[in-house]
């Protein structure tokens, strides 16, 4: 395999105006927000998201006015509430949507990854997900067909291929053999489905460290186009085994997002303001970041120790 390491700036250039992205993460965990901040600071237009649960990516793209379309299954802020800029963007007709179940999105990624023109699945049938199109015509997304073997009705869905996957993970070797601890969300399927794959990681390690636990390799290097060493690249979302989500910082955004004007100021100050990744982290401050660190025996920071 080849060395995939590039700078954050080089990786950001792989995301052009008008492209569709999918991003790793689940709820307040391992969303590639370090990369996203750099992308927003750089500025892009007319992006589409194809996502399962990367609520912060969808919301910040919407808040930055960069999001046009969303193929997705669920974006909300667990413990807070709705993604306000994203939801209001849809209500205002500024963001077009195509809805799915989680499994529906995952299976469209799988079909795209495996070059299958369709894939059967046992959910989504009988609902408006299957019959009400927002971007596609419904019959392009889901159909109920009869099994060629027994004639039973079964739903089939079509492939959906994002242009770029952006994933933050725990560690990789220089060739991009990538591991993540804890629940792995949809990272493997997203990486396999996308045309271009960008991985940011907490640590770049020697190949021997990957080979020491080869069963944990989630994304092999041949899927990866660009690898960026980006510690705290998920912050303010968390990174299992490294640090908890920064609920205070997330709440700060959530409060600002209730009002379009205050939200715009927040985006300007926090996402477009920092000079680079280190400035972004530096403004939070070392004490704040280190206070989030996981207890290694638990994989998280117990309540009694919380920052």
């Amino acid at each position, binding site marked *: 395999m080849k060395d995939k390491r590039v700078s954050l700036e080089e990786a950001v250039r792989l995301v052009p105006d008008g492209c569709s992205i999918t991003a790793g993460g689940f709820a307040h965990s391992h969303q590639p927000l370090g990369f996203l901040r750099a992308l927003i600071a750089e500025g892009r237009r007319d992006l589409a998201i194809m996502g399962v649960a990367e609520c912060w990516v969808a919301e910040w793209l919407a808040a930055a006015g960069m999001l046009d379309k969303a193929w997705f299954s669920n974006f909300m802020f667990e413990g807070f509430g709705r993604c306000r800029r994203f939801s209001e963007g849809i209500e205002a007709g500024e963001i077009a949507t195509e809805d799915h*179940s989680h499994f529906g999105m995952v299976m469209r990624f799988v079909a795209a990854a495996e070059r299958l023109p369709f894939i059967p699945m046992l959910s989504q049938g009988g609902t408006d997900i299957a019959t009400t199109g927002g971007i596609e015509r419904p019959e392009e997304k889901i159909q109920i067909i009869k099994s060629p073997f027994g004639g039973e009705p079964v739903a089939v869905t079509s492939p959906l291929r994002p242009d770029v996957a952006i994933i933050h993970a725990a560690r990789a070797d220089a060739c991009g053999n990538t591991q993540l601890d804890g629940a792995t969300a949809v990272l493997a399927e997203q990486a396999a489905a996308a045309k271009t794959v960008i991985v940011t990681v907490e640590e770049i390690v020697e190949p021997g460290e990957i080979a020491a636990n080869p069963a944990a390799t989630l994304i092999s290097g041949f899927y990866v186009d660009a690898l960026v060493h980006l510690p705290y690249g998920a912050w303010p979302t968390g990174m299992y085994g490294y640090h908890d989500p920064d609920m205070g910082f997330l709440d700060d955004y959530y409060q600002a997002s209730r009002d379009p004007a205050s939200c715009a100021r927040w985006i300007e100050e926090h996402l477009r303001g920092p000079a680079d990744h280190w400035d972004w982290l530096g403004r939070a401050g070392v004490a704040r970041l280190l206070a989030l660190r996981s207890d290694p025996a638990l994989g998280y920071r*117990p309540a009694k120790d919380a920052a």
Partner: protein
Amino acid sequence: MSRDALMAIAAAREINDGEVAFIGTGLPMVAAYLAKATHAPSVTLVFESGIIDPAPLELATGVGEYRLAYGASAIRGTRAALTLLQQGRVDLGFLGTAEIDAYGNLNSTAIGDYRRPKVRLPGSGGANDIASMAARTVVIARAGRRRFVESLNYLTTPGHLTGPGARRQAGLPGDGPVRVITDMGVLGFHPATLRMRVERLFPGFTPDQIQAEIGFRLEDPGEIVTDAAPDAETLALLRRIDPAGTYVKLQDE
């Protein structure tokens, strides 16, 4: 006695020992750990994040939250968790909703026109998958005429669709909802029509009080059970599982 506690206890009752239950954040998580601590010690809990059978030391505030991973017998990804549903390995799933109709169909997508909604909601997530593929489901929804509606704005998650036979025609393997747990009592589905009717009442409520909060006509009930007030031991357990009352307050506000 809080309505939260009554709902959590009613939800826990739906879990049988030895089953595999697919659990979301909030009240179902509290109910699941209540069941596990009482009549269903060998229930296996599965979460859509890919966490299977954990033994968390503290109540988690989300299905992907790190404290939920502690002690899990398996951790994978979301596809693996949802594939358990497709495999028919999940006996029971819990669902919440913004709107529900008489057949137990749910809307968590949009109020108003889909392309230009009055209120955009979060979307299905795993709900449609649970409702389609778990052997049976239980909906948890406080009563209210804006929630229990004659006609949904958008059908996100299948209940019994249009009635008997409709799920099979849509290719759905699970049997659909068996209960709807409200804050006044528990509704079930009439076996012939698959439309909702009252099955159990929480202490102090009447069928008419429930009907008044439901925007469609409930089927005539069969036999109705009235629950006793929960005992102190159960309430103490709820307090231990959710000490801060994050999801289940023991006193109504």
